[in-house]
């Protein structure tokens, strides 16, 4: 993406650089949401259904971590993955994998906190029924997650929104390397720093359209799912 081009031209001419950047952005953010869902949904449900000392404190911390500043998460992962850090030998710093890890750290608290609230609300409705049927703890968690699945889509979308919008963490751990770790948000930051504000805002509009499309797809899938589940 060089020279005097506009974002619209890049889209219309099918600029391969632009498509690679869009693809990487989606790959990183969707992978992070997938990893965060695998961790966050069961974790949130577990906290919702169990009682133990310090539970309230954990809920407060989890809710607070929804506001974890991306640059702080990025810096922590950077120090962990740096060659001078404990996981330096993995050689992951400045790769897409490092970006997925950083965004997973950002998204997991959002998914876990929203899942906890959703499942806890549902639990109040289901408690007597599940107790009467003598369902064990794992069975309860599975039942409630399954029955809350359509509401949980919103939690996943909130997580995706966070991941797709952030630039602080992936800039630090990915390094904004051309053709390798450059995403929509880091490109926008770069074009802004080059003073090419029209291209930067054009890329911003493309990013917003992609996020709207993903949300529309999720909404359609949810509606279709609800109809089948009837």
């Amino acid at each position: 993406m060089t020279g005097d081009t506009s974002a619209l031209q890049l889209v219309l001419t099918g600029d391969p650089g632009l498509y690679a950047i869009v693809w990487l952005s989606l790959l990183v953010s969707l992978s992070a949401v997938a990893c965060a869902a695998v961790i966050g949904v069961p974790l949130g449900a577990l906290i919702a259904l169990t009682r133990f000392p310090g539970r309230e404190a954990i809920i407060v911390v989890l809710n607070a971590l929804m506001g974890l500043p991306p640059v702080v998460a990025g810096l922590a992962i950077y120090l962990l993955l740096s060659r001078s850090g404990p996981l330096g030998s993995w050689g992951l710093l400045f790769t897409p994998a490092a970006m997925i890890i950083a965004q997973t750290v950002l998204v997991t608290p959002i998914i876990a906190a929203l899942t906890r609230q959703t499942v806890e609300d549902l639990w109040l409705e289901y408690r007597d029924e599940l107790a009467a049927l003598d369902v064990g703890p794992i069975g309860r968690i599975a039942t409630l997650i399954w029955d809350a699945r359509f509401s949980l889509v919103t939690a996943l979308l909130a997580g995706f929104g966070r991941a797709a919008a952030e630039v602080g963490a992936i800039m630090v751990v990915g390094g904004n390397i051309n053709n390798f770790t450059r995403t929509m948000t880091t490109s926008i930051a770069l074009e802004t720093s080059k003073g090419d504000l029209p291209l930067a805002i054009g890329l911003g509009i493309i990013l917003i359209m992609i996020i709207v499309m993903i949300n529309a797809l999720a909404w359609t899938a949810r509606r279709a799912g609800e109809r089948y589940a009837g």
Partner: protein
Amino acid sequence: MLNRRTLLTAALLSASIAFAPSAFAQDKSIIVASTTSTQDSGLFEYLLPLFKTKTGITVKVISQGTGQALDTGRRGDADVVFVHAKSAEEKFLSEGFGVKRHPVMYNDFVLIGPKSDPAGIKGGKDVAKALVAIKDKNASFISRGDKSGTHAAELALWKASNVDVEKETGGWYKAIGQGMGAALNTAGSSNAYVLSDRGSWINFKNKGDLGILVEGDKRMFNQYGVTLVNPAKHANVKKDLGQSFIDYLISPEGQKAIGDYKINGEQLFYPNAEDTGA
């Protein structure tokens, strides 16, 4: 309708694709920590494809301020550092983090300001005099404030002007702690003066009301040097590939390519690898 298994498969597939490039880019690629000026000036977008065609080596550039780029080298997270602050580079070498510093090219810094020029410095040749005028008029000045090479050069120029900017921070002197482009954007939108390297300035697209007001003072010289990170400190450093990049930059072919890089007919960098004292 998507079922859970499809979703899970898609998630795992996408994760494995994400990890794959890092695995295969291991073969022939190096990480170069460099300055915002080499990136914002567009030099790398022009030079790296030439190097790749010749050697097959992919150069991954992390663009940071000079201070941060040297720290990236210190941590072992880059194979080569390509920066512009000789004293900081020599410190890096004396700490044992670098193998040998090679001068590559130079350009110069220029003092940028609004056309209205409230400090009345336009056309001057003495940068110290111009800076004193800016301070005396309380005219806004934007400092990088990010320990970059340009920031170091700016502080040296203030010192030469006998102005203690530490004391002035917060008033007319604003340190923004960001890269060159951000500093130029800020200066443009607040009618302020700013020091820039010439390359970033020429390639900057949001010039607006800004222009070069003072240039040509020999104290505004800007030398770039390249150093291989010491493999004795960090065993993961790809010394052969990193050294090929350095060898290319200082070879007659690389030097010619650097000199040939122009924007609108204007040359941005002047190769001087043969000047070993630079």
